[in-house]
C-alpha cells in the first residue's frame, strides 16, 4: 500500500523545491528500506514530521551537511557554514512544507502532522515501530543530494 503513497511525497517535495528554491530535484529509484539500525552514512542531519489520524507514520528528509547548508542559504539568502540553529530551523520548515503538501493529496483521509523535529549526527539512525514499512526516495538537485524516507505504521 505504501507504494501508492510515494507519488504524493515526490510531488510535494518537487513543489517545495520549485517554489522555495527555484530548482527541481531529479528522482532516483525508490527502494524499500530494510534495516532501521543501518546508519544513514553520508546524511548528517534528518528532519522529521510525524503523521497521525487515519494514516500514521513519518516523513523524513535526510541531508549531507553540504546540501543542508546550500538549502538553508538559498532559502534565506544566508551564508551559514555549519549546522547551526538557523540551518536546523530551515530543514524543519522544509519537511513541514513537504508533509503539508503530501497529506493534502490523501483524498478522503484525515491526517494530522506534528511539528517538525531535527536530528543531527554522523551516521545517525532512526528507529521505526515494528510492523511499519519504509520507502527511501533518493533525490538529486543542484543544491546537492538528499533522501526522503516515508514510513507507514500498520
Amino acid at each position, binding site marked *: 500500500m505504501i507504494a501508492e503513497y510515494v507519488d504524493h511525497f515526490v510531488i510535494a517535495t518537487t513543489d517545495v523545491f520549485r517554489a*522555495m528554491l527555484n530548482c527541481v530535484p531529479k528522482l532516483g529509484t525508490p527502494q524499500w528500506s530494510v534495516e532501521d539500525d543501518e546508519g544513514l552514512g553520508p546524511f548528517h542531519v534528518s528532519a522529521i514530521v510525524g503523521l497521525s489520524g487515519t494514516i500514521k507514520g513519518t516523513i523524513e528528509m535526510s541531508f549531507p551537511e553540504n546540501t543542508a547548508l546550500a538549502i538553508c542559504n538559498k532559502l534565506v539568502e544566508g551564508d551559514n557554514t555549519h549546522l547551526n540553529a538557523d540551518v536546523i530551523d530551515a530543514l524543519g*520548515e522544509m519537511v*513541514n512544507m513537504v508533509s503539508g503538501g503530501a497529506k493534502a493529496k490523501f483524498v478522503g483521509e484525515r491526517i494530522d502532522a506534528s511539528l517538525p523535529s531535527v536530528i543531527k549526527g554522523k551516521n545517525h539512525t532512526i528507529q521505526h515501530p515494528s510492523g511499519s514499512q519504509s520507502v527511501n526516495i533518493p533525490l538529486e538537485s543542484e543544491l546537492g543530494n538528499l533522501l526522503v524516507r516515508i514510513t507507514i505504521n500498520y
Partner: protein
Amino acid sequence: MKVLIVDDSKTMRTIIKGALGKGGISDVLEAVNGKEAVSAVMTSDVDLILMDWNMPEMSGLEAVKTIRAAGNDSTIMMVTTEAEKHRIIEALQSGVNDYLVKPFTPDILLGKINKYVGKPV
C-alpha cells in the same frame, strides 16, 4: 501598512519579511506563536496579520479566534501548510479573511497582499 508575521520558524519569517521588503513593505512585526501574536495585536495597530497555523503554545487558529473575540478586525491571512479543504473552511469560519498555502513564491505572496495595500482595513 503595518504587517505582523506570525510563524514559529525563523526561516519562514525571514522569507516572508524578504518578500514584503521586495514589495516595499518594511513596517513589520514578528511573533513566534499565537500567544505572542495576540499580545502584539492588542498593543500595536496592525493592518495585516500573516498567520501560520501549527505553532507551539498557541496555534494560529486559536489566536485568530482570540483576536476576533476581542473585537479586532485586522485583516488576517493564514500562511500555512494546511491545504485540506476542511481546514480552509474552518479557518474562514473562524474569522480569517484570506488563505495562502505553503510553499509559495514571493510573487504569489505579494499578489495576495497587494489586494490589501492602501485599503482601509
